[in-house]
């Protein structure tokens, strides 16, 4: 027998492999990142991730209208407050709002506080799906870069331009980790700016916190991003599902002062279960009672069984804590059945075209369904004269992008917050550096014009680690059953801003 015939191949191969890897070398990501060109290639409308991870804030329509802002000139965050920053007595200590501090001696010895920040540029990094089934989310980053370019044309961050470099991870946490590791090792980024996906962010947040890399405005609704005590360098952005359930409870208390029985149909994954946890947390001490929670599998063909069980409870309220086509099915079941509860649906199902249009074909409407809205819809005629919407449309037109794709607008939402953070940090003692960026991310307090008028979103150091906690309950109103209806506000704006606190509250409610 030829005993050693594979020795040579092995060695040759290993060397070939090494050469191949070496040739790849550093990946110079395309400088100015994804922006400004024609949008014809994209198969673009971002679908709501069933996993509940990265849901876009756009997609919902409202007639709530009334643009609150009277701002003239460029729609960009105002100059920073200059309230926080480097401690005058200890140059390694950065003191932020409500007890939040950064001690830079706890960072790695070679940590560079000015990394990624020059006199002309601020380099930020994001890993997100550019290919694969969720590639539609890539538009979000094009929207972000478009807004950053707009900011740069209007003064930038003290003359600096924000440059977003993006790398593809196909929404696979393992690839996000590789991209993140490389970005951490590249020593050229000031911060991570909005990574998508709950597991993707969970997979890297130990690394970012160890390396003192600000991991800002995560694009997922998980409650973990409020863990300011253990992960001070990580923040979220959007209304988490836990808080959304809290808004429902606030609204139900007004709508049903004498108490209500509630049944729910829940998408059986982390996304759906977050609603259940939140709802149970917020109904404590109220006269609202959860009489039945019926789970459906992420792959269930329909939710008819769950609907039948829920109907058997004869509750006053039905919660559709699900997403995608299950929302449409749930609304159809209710409209066809004899049980007529008040239906509250996940805000992820706010897209009229995606989830309400199919009902019309069935001869149904989905009327009187309630849901929470937080951000403006640029497609809503009522918002047509809103400064942020007109700016958005101009910027999109200039960049050659299709403004009707609301995912771009979601990019604006994130980018506005990021710009505010950087402007704020630039005003702090010690100047624009990464420690001050982190303080600023915990001190967001300006009114983001993309929010529904009257809402605010704030961060407050160790006291409030959730950015978006308010919303408007809207009711789907139908006048012509053959046409799509509109959302009309029902009840006052619900602003739970600051009430959730930090992740410690959420984890205790287990």
């Amino acid at each position, binding site marked *: 027998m*030829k005993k050693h015939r594979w020795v040579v191949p092995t060695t040759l191969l290993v060397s070939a492999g090494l050469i191949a890897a070496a040739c790849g070398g550093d990946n110079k990501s395309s400088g100015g990142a994804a922006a400004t060109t024609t949008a014809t290639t994209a198969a673009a409308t971002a679908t709501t991730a069933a996993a509940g991870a990265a849901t876009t804030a756009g997609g919902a329509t409202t007639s709530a209208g009334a643009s609150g802002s009277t701002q003239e000139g460029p729609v960009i965050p105002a100059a920073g407050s200059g309230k926080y920053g480097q401690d005058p007595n200890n140059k390694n200590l950065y003191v932020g709002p409500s007890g939040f501090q950064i001690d830079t001696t706890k960072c790695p010895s070679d940590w560079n506080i000015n990394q990624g920040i020059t006199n002309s540029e601020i380099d930020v990094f994001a890993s997100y799906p550019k290919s694969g089934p969720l590639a539609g989310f890539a538009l979000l980053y094009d929207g972000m870069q478009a807004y950053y370019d707009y900011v740069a044309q209007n003064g930038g961050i003290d003359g600096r331009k924000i440059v977003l470099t993006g790398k593809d991870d196909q929404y696979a946490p393992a690839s996000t980790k590789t991209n993140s590791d490389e970005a951490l090792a590249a020593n050229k980024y000031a911060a991570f700016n909005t990574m998508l996906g709950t597991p993707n962010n969970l997979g890297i947040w130990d690394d970012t916190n160890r390396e003192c890399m600000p991991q800002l405005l995560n694009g997922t609704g*998980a409650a973990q991003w409020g863990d300011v005590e253990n992960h001070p360098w990580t923040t979220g952005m959007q209304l988490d599902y836990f808080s959304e359930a809290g808004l429902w409870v606030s609204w139900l208390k007004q709508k049903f002062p004498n108490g209500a029985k509630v049944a729910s149909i829940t998408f059986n*994954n982390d996304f759906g279960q977050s609603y259940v946890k939140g709802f149970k947390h917020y109904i404590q001490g109220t006269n609202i009672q959860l009489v039945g929670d019926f789970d459906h599998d992420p792959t269930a063909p329909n939710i008819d069984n769950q609907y039948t069980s829920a109907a058997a409870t004869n509750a006053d309220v039905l919660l559709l804590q699900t997403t995608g086509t299950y929302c449409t099915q749930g609304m159809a079941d209710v409209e066809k059945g004899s049980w007529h509860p008040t239906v509250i649906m996940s805000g992820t199902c706010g897209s009229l075209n995606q989830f309400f249009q199919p009902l019309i074909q069935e001869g149904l409407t989905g009327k009187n369904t309630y849901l929470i809205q937080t951000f403006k819809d640029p497609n809503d005629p009522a918002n047509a004269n809103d400064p942020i919407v007109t700016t958005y449309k101009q910027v999109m037109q200039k960049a050659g992008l299709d403004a009707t794709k609301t995912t771009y607008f979601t990019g604006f939402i994130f980018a506005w917050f990021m710009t505010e953070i950087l402007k704020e940090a630039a005003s702090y003692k010690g100047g624009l550096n990464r420690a001050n960026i982190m303080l600023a991310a915990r001190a967001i307090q300006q009114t983001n014009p993309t929010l529904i008028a009257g809402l605010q979103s704030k961060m407050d150091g160790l006291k409030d680690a959730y950015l978006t906690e308010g919303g408007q309950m809207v009711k789907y109103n139908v006048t012509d059953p053959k046409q799509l209806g509109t959302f009309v506000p029902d009840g006052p704006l619900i602003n739970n801003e600051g009430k959730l606190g930090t992740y410690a509250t959420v984890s205790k409610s287990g």
Partner: protein
Amino acid sequence: MALVTLTERTPAHRAYQTIFWVLGIAMLLYIPWFADKPARIDQFTQVVCYAVAIMALNLVIGFSGQISLGHSAFVGLGAYTTIILVADHNWSYFSTIPLAFVLTFACGFLIGLPALRIRGLYLAVVTLAAATVFPTLVLKYGDFTGGPNGKQSSSRLLPPDWSPLDPKSRFGPVAYRYFLCLFIGALLFVVARNLMRSRVGRALIAQRDNQTSAATSGVNLPVYRTLIFGLSAGIAGIAGSLLMIETPQATDTKFGVNLAIFMVVALVLGGIASIPGAIPAGLIFVFVPYYTRNWSDNISWLGNRPGAGAISGVFYGLLLIVFIFVLPGGVMDGIHRVKARLIKVIPNPVWLPKDHAEVVIGDEPASPFPEMVTEPTDSDLTATTTRGSE
């Protein structure tokens, strides 16, 4: 004509072998310094892990002739066993490996049972079911597995005190994990290689090529076929555990059907029915999708265009097709061809019977599946009798 002609088991031949071994091992050990960046070292650790998984798959597909599209489930099961025990029950990474092996071995054995009755495409479908069901089960028992958020542990394996690697540096822990995975992986490769060269391996290959004649020669088909499925699953499970040592995070999407299919693809590209073939397969598995993603990001005429990244899938597919056309026998086939050009090893005439005719060996290497398609010719038989005399 080959550049060098060596006679088997002469000092010259031994010297060549030793040089290649030493060089090969030195290269493997040098990788952390060569890769330099922690992210790149981690990728090489992934190469080791996936090479082990693909080698395991090769035992089933290449050596025993049963198609499995379900190995992602075994890798996933091993990974989840490790990560759940480490994250929720404070086990050490090492102590989870034997348990991961036992669990996946048992599962593989059970899935191997239907393989006794069905063959080919039908078996592929049955095993595909395992691959499809696994992520669903992970989601179904979310309290236990972490569901769609995945399960992660913040405790990572650090170099022990006696090692020269600094646990506080960025390089130390990453390099340590590479060496650890490399050591365990190498051990598994040696075990698999020896097993395939032993009676068991010959029995497996015999039943792969012709079940009836193997059974006639006394090969216990059911035992071999189920045991190899179990063993293969067990090794794949260890690969899963090693993956968790590399990155302690398991998610449902990481161990889905995609993994199963791409493992088979990588296996074919690396070289089927070849134990070392799993090494190029692992390199392909990790680096090809990585670089196609980066390339497509940087193509100027597509770059910075919304949705440009989607092209990477197309590149990856094209590359695989081209590869199959150029090197149908996989990378190992190519290496054998190159080797045959450079070095020719002829049997030592001392071992041949006195009346034996001159042995003629061509420049072309043997096909990995010669026996499956062609009937043995007279010359093949002669070669077998003469060369099996050691």
